[in-house]
């Protein structure tokens, strides 16, 4: 387990089923994380970004459901400890990227980064020695993710970039047990 290298963890999919299981796990992880980040932002009264993360969670949830429908699965495969090449799934936001004063711009940049990584992830499969039907599915997914990147970029264009000093807090942190 821990002794093995990351690359070995992720065998190339031998069938469309296997490939879609991987895509499904990616969407599940991404959706759950966005929902969790929405909660965090909510707790810290950053309603705007909380709403944005919640929306992203819904979008990823929809993708997850689309995969289920496409494959005719009732439940998806176990996504709990899916082994990624990267520390987490290619569409999952790193906990460490958050700031409680972050603005929609930052959140969308994170989403853009995620969608781009997802597209690249699928493109790598499409270029790898996999069966033709897998390659076709990978191309299709990659195309979708590219489309998401474009949508988010359009969205970003409508959002003002943050002023310098956006993360300055007039008040000291208020923790103390």
């Amino acid at each position, binding site marked *: 387990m821990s*002794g093995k290298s990351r690359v070995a963890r992720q065998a190339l999919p031998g069938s469309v089923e296997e490939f879609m299981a991987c895509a499904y796990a990616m969407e599940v992880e991404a959706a*759950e994380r966005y929902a969790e980040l929405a909660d965090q932002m909510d707790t810290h009264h950053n309603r705007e970004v909380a709403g944005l993360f919640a929306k992203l969670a819904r979008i990823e949830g929809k993708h997850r459901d689309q995969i289920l429908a496409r494959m005719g699965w009732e439940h998806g495969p176990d996504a709990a400890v899916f082994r990624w090449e990267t520390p987490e799934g290619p569409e999952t936001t790193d*906990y*460490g990227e958050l*700031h409680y004063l972050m603005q929609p711009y930052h959140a969308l940049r994170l989403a853009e980064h995620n969608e781009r990584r997802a597209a690249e992830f699928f493109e790598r499969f499409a270029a790898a020695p996999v069966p033709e039907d897998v390659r076709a599915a990978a191309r299709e997914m990659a195309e979708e993710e590219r489309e998401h990147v474009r949508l988010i970029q359009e969205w970003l264009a409508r959002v003002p970039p943050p002023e310098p000093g956006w993360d300055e807090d007039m008040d000291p942190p208020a*923790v103390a047990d």
Partner: protein
Amino acid sequence: MNETAVALAPAGYKSEVKPVWCPGCGDFGVVNALSKAFAKLALRPEDIAVVSGIGCSSRIPAYMSSYGFHGVHGRALAAGTGLKIARPDLTVVVTGGDGDGYSIGGNHFLHACRRNVDMTYVVMDNRVYGMTKGQPSPTTEPDWDSKLSPDGTGLREFQPMVIALASGANFVARGFTGDPNGLAEILVEAMRHPGFSFVEVLSPCVTFRPEQKEWKKLVQEDAFTPTADAKEAAGRLMHDTGFDLGVLYAGGRAPYAPRGPRAERPVEELERRFVL
């Protein structure tokens, strides 16, 4: 170990209580990894007790759907030890921070390692006292400047893994909150391994140590090759970067068990010792 057929998704191990942690705090990754590990082991939440001391990281029990115990600063290992010895059927996970575990609770850390009670100790090391707003902890770099210790403490960092190994911990590993899946795998192994399992978790504090955001570039996945040979593990630690991840040591010491003959005789029989 209470592995059962009742499968719960990781989310089933999280409670409804919303963490008070700063967004970006590494400790979120531990909740994530712990719930994945519990799910992987198919534990029943009521058979798990998450025990902690005081600190940001020590708030974790309330965020899990298992039983929890949030005690006093530095004494989590003692509370967990008492619980596990009194209730060997439970899966006990002790959690906390580097200040809680290595400073005020340092003595308990040594003795928990040597006592080797079958439980898992997860230390969220952020090299700072988060909860009290940024004082140096035993693992803080000597020159880290702070209000309470201007220009740094000048003290050498405490070496948790060296101490754990030297004190007799039966399982020693390091994980990173930026990789909750990898951490979950380590936690699964730690909980499965008999005896006292120590997992040092690099868990950045975005508020008082924002520079720790860089940790994700420094960590070395699977840098350790697990060994059951303590000497080999000790040798490996001599060239540890502090960011080497994985299981360092999985030893074969028998876990703590009460010694001597035991029985379940009626209490009144004890009176014989007094009767003239």
